[in-house]
């Protein structure tokens, strides 16, 4: 129950930051960071894959409600939820240790978390920006925006994670 509350609080906080602050950030008209996929990233390993998909759908849909873009964020977030277990496997390179319960820096180490989170962010931004323009004529423009936004989102996500879940001192 405690865990449930923690995840719910994180959900509300991330959506709030995304909608109230980050959606108003635009540097040069190109950079637009999205940090809400962090919510999907931090869900526990034990969560069944189908539930992950439903939560991804709900998260994306909530964002869409705020941004009046029906389906856009939903599609991108469901994709992130779908590929998450595969990315976990790729980032680990080996079966997960028995003790691992959640994909956090404290449990998995910062190098692991970096490759894990950046992979998911790239997939999310690719889906989001390509679906949004949905026009081969603007492909180069979309790719330019993806290349600029990914580092921004990633830096913000790492800052949040380091601030709220610092790595354990060894």
């Amino acid at each position, binding site marked *: 129950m405690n865990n449930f509350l923690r995840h719910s609080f994180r959900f509300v906080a991330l959506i709030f930051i995304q909608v109230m602050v980050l959606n108003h950030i635009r540097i040069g*008209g190109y950079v637009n960071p999205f940090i809400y996929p962090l919510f999907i990233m931090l869900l526990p390993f034990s969560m069944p*894959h189908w539930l992950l998909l439903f939560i991804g759908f709900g998260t994306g849909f909530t964002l869409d409600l705020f*941004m009046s873009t*029906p*389906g856009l964020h939903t599609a991108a977030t469901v994709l992130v939820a779908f590929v998450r277990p595969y990315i976990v496997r790729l980032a680990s390179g080996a079966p997960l240790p028995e003790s691992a319960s959640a994909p956090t820096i404290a449990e998995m180490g910062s190098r692991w978390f970096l490759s894990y989170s950046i992979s998911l962010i790239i997939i999310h931004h690719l889906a989001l920006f390509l*679906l949004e323009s949905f026009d081969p004529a603007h492909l180069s423009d979309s790719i330019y*925006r993806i290349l600029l936004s990914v580092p921004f989102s990633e830096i913000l996500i790492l800052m949040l994670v380091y601030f709220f879940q610092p790595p354990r001192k060894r």
Partner: protein
Amino acid sequence: MINLIRFIQKHHVLLLFLLLEIIALNMLFRSNAYHRSAAFTMNSTVSGVFYRMHKSITDYFYLQQTNEQLAQENAYLRQQLQHNPVLSEKDSMILTDTVFHYIPARVVSNNVHFRNNYIVLNKGYKSGIEKDMGIISPEGVAGIIIGVSKNYAIGMSMLHKFTAISVRFKNNGNLANLSWQGGDYRFGIIDHIPTHLVVNKGDTLITSGNSHLFPEGILVGTVENYITSDDGALNQARIRFATDFNRLRQVYVVDNKHRSELDSLLMNRVDE
């Protein structure tokens, strides 16, 4: 039958993923019918409450800027009243007043970084706003209303794939079509300029009045640079928008009182 159940059991995650993506993409592509997208935003009470909260906080930060803008606009209008012989004649002033009404509204949400950007306003059909009305900012043209609910209206800004407005070069009266091709939100583009037309940097563009959305002579932008095509046929010009879309806060919705009359007249012409 058993095989089918086994298949579903084996691939239930993939099937669920495909199902959810199909739902999402269906929403995405159906929302190109703009009403749906408008209804989607307006009917979500939760996001409405959030946006109002956000507005009431951020409005304070922009008070000075908004004041300045309104003061400048006032000064400009006063000047026009004094110096414009057409406007100061009583008859024509009444005429312009009865054709175009301006409904002031505030921007509740606005984007500039997508390929298709929307402006949400805090007034709806309760205040007389209808679909297909023009939106202007104190600086120039801003967009077109595409959907209204009781208290809100949504418009596509100039920064949208489907927004193209009819403009006129102020110095020589030539017509052109202004659109936005993505990228930098400060610049739009005019295509298909015949080669004989002389276009200089800094030339002013105003609305042509052909579309009935905007009154004639509203500032749209200035020529930033002129691009001659290689094959020497039709040239392009890059236009700096008069409106700063990133700072859009106070706008006016243009209500053309003669629009339905004009539209039905044009319809008749098509029928015959």
